[in-house]
């Protein structure tokens, strides 16, 4: 299913409940891999699934609060901005992808598929 807002085409990717709480799923079929996260407060975030440090798959990390810890070297990334946190703050960013939730379904912009 797709929905259209002003000048924007959104593609449905899954139901919120398809993502484990404090976990993530990876979307295949996009140009760059995209990770969709769901945290303990049921907020949903999406980032390009590459850690700015050494390109680790963030979708495999441990999700806590509004952040995820990369499985490769333990870098912590802000789920809202994609920025590295803590001692590495300002040293890199996993581009964030907008999300839209409607009736418990998760949508991302169509352009995120080609970017």
């Amino acid at each position, binding site marked *: 299913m797709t929905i259209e807002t002003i000048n924007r085409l959104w593609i449905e990717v899954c139901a919120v409940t398809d993502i484990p709480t404090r976990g993530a799923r990876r*979307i*295949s*079929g996009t140009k760059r891999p995209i990770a969709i996260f769901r945290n303990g407060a049921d907020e949903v975030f999406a980032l390009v699934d590459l850690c700015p440090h050494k390109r680790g798959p963030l979708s*495999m990390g*441990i*999700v*806590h609060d509004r952040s995820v810890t990369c499985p490769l070297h*333990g870098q912590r990334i802000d789920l809202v901005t994609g920025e590295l946190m803590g001692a590495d703050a300002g040293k890199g960013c996993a581009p964030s992808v907008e999300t839209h939730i409607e009736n418990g379904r998760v949508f991302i912009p*169509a352009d995120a598929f080609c970017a």
Partner: protein
Amino acid sequence: MSREKLVVIGNGMAGCRVVEEILKRDPDRYEIAMFGAEPRLNYNRIMLSPVLAGEKQFEDIIINGEDWYRDNRITLHTGQQVVSIDSDAKTLKTAAGLAQAYDRLVLATGSDPVVLPLPGATLQGVVAFRDIDDVDRMVAISGRGGNAVVIGGGLLGLEAAYGLSRRGMDATVVHLMDVLMERQLDHSAGHLLAEALKARGIATILGAQSEEILGQNGKVAGLKLKDGRVLPCDLLVMAVGIRPNAKLAQTAGLQINRGVMVDDAMRTSDPSIFAVGECAEHRGQCYGLVAPIWEMCRSLAETLTGVDGAYVGSTLSTRLKVSGVDVFSAGKFAGGEGCEDIVFRDAGRGVYKRIVLENGRLAGAVLFGDAVDGAWYFDLMRSQADVSEMRETLVFGQAATEGLRGLDPSSAVAAMADTAEVCGCNGVCKGVIVAEIVSKKLTSLDSVRAVTKASASCGSCTPLVERLLKLTAGDAVIEHRGSQPVCSCTDYGHGIVRKRIIEEGLQSIPAVMQALEWKTPDGCAHCRPALNYYLLCAWPGAYRDDQQSRFVNERVHANIQKDGTYSVIPRMWGGMTSARELRAIADVVDRFDIPAVKVTGGQRIDLLGVQKSQLPAVWAELNAAGMVSGHAYGKALRTVKTCVGSEWCRFGTQDSTGLGVRLERFLWGSWTPAKVKLAVSGCPRNCAEATCKDLGVICVDSGYEIHVGGAAGLHIKGTEILARVSTETAAIEMIAAVLQLYREEGHYLERIYKWMARVGLDSVVTRVVADDGQRRELFDRFVEAQSTSQEDPWADRAGGLDASEFHGLPVTLQVAAE
């Protein structure tokens, strides 16, 4: 009436301790001012070694914070060097021009490190080991790895080398004498120490005279010895001794020999000026160890509060602070005229003890490899007790001696005299500790430390202090060993968290976080895996494992690699395999186009480069050939390495392979605080390398030696012998029991050797070996936990469990359809 002005020059350990001792006796007598040349608070210099080794932080070793000075109305001048004293006018001057009058003056100016006048001594990268700045410099250089050379094989030099080696440098100790720590150790102990250091990667060169420090671009590059050898290095530490700092005393015209000369009341040649600590010389002796300095401080405090102190010099005892190397020395350790020696050696355990008797009394002792009785011997020495009656058992230690005389070893603490010293560093005796525990209702080790200082310095008497606390406060004791919090989400340490999970019946991660007032909503990547493990261990079968609190490897049961692919290692029981298994592995490699196949150090086969989505299918095929997960990815039971043993080997004494297979089949699937590796060797030639595993078995003719606490990774550590048993079944029971004890007590990510260093081998032996009932209970709990843990995680997932974990969300862009 205005109070007398007491000025203390030196804000180090001695200076502060004198003031503390005075305040204890007469808090309102003096108006106190202190001058410190270092621009910081007072810290515990003897703990610099653990800071260098990365075992403690600077904050951990601060003795008195700013509030101490404020609360006691002490004026502290830091970063202020006193340059002269006018003893006639009773004033002193600082480098900045400040003048200060005194009624009484205490010199606690300490000592300076001796710098050898070698060519190149001023090169960058040549450091002493004296203060926290030196430590910072060493830590900075060690970050780049490389070689370190330490000149000086005394206490300080060895601790420096150990710290640098822990920090990843290759360390070499160059010592002028032919025995390490020759002022404390005899030849035998010195030799064992050199061997123990070698096993920890620290080389020693004895009888070596340094000739020149070589440099390159202004930086140190190597040390040239007299015999022509050149030792390349990136860091050179001089730890060749200290020299009392008596420069200031000179300006006051005081009598000086090696140090500032003092009488038994710690008074210098000027009746208003006193000296204490490393700068002082008393009856021809200068001291550099902490215990005598505390004794001087007490005498001086007595002098300054009315009664002239009567310091008569100190009996010295020394302990080396190198983890896992137990060394103690005291008194006339090398014997001499009119002395008798009692020597005990146990080559298997690497133990050497030498007790020196003089006229039926203990005159000295050297202990290597097992120094738990150091304090007891030291006590006997100082009390000058007649030991002729216990001569036969003396060398076996307190437990054996008093056990044979009808005392239960565990009641030894209760039987200690009130005047017996518990903490040598701070001179605290049993009576004081017990009195404070009772009067202040103390219930934790930390509070006992804060009030009495017992075990607050080197920490080697911690077990004794804890036993006293348990004995005195009973059930009220709060266990608080590691004061280090689990992570920044909480103030509680691992021990307390584990204890409260059990006591309060906490059954889930959110329940723990609620009850212990976690500061973050859902923890972090440090505490969540720890809590998940603690709950799993506390409530086997009942707790529902939280997959999202597991590190990815344990979630997908494979090892993530740098490119996001995974490695798969099936179990090969005891390292045995078969044509059928190998054929199945080969087929899997072909079918899934697996790019790399590697034989591991744990006697198994690793398939590298498997895509995550392929994992369930790969496992299904391996399962079909009878193979299960090797848990090579987990904080879990990994592998049991074996040699071929009596089945094939002409030296084999027992069926090591068979025992290894039995062990692995019994233990597999068990989750543990950190990874656990085992090995079984069929004879002491030890081809399976069992003495560097977490748990090892060495088969001998008479049965099985059970080894614990080895490691050969980031740190290299040989095992210790836990027990000797005569049957396979007894060996398995012993191993399962010790593993269960570790499962129940270990801090998350703490390997067995670290857990053992924390609780002490004795405590493990007491519970697992000596107490049959307790061992049986541990064994039963392990069996119970295993009853729900031996399901192959691969089979479950090949059958569809957590399927979404292994597949991405299949979304395709179909804009054209709009």
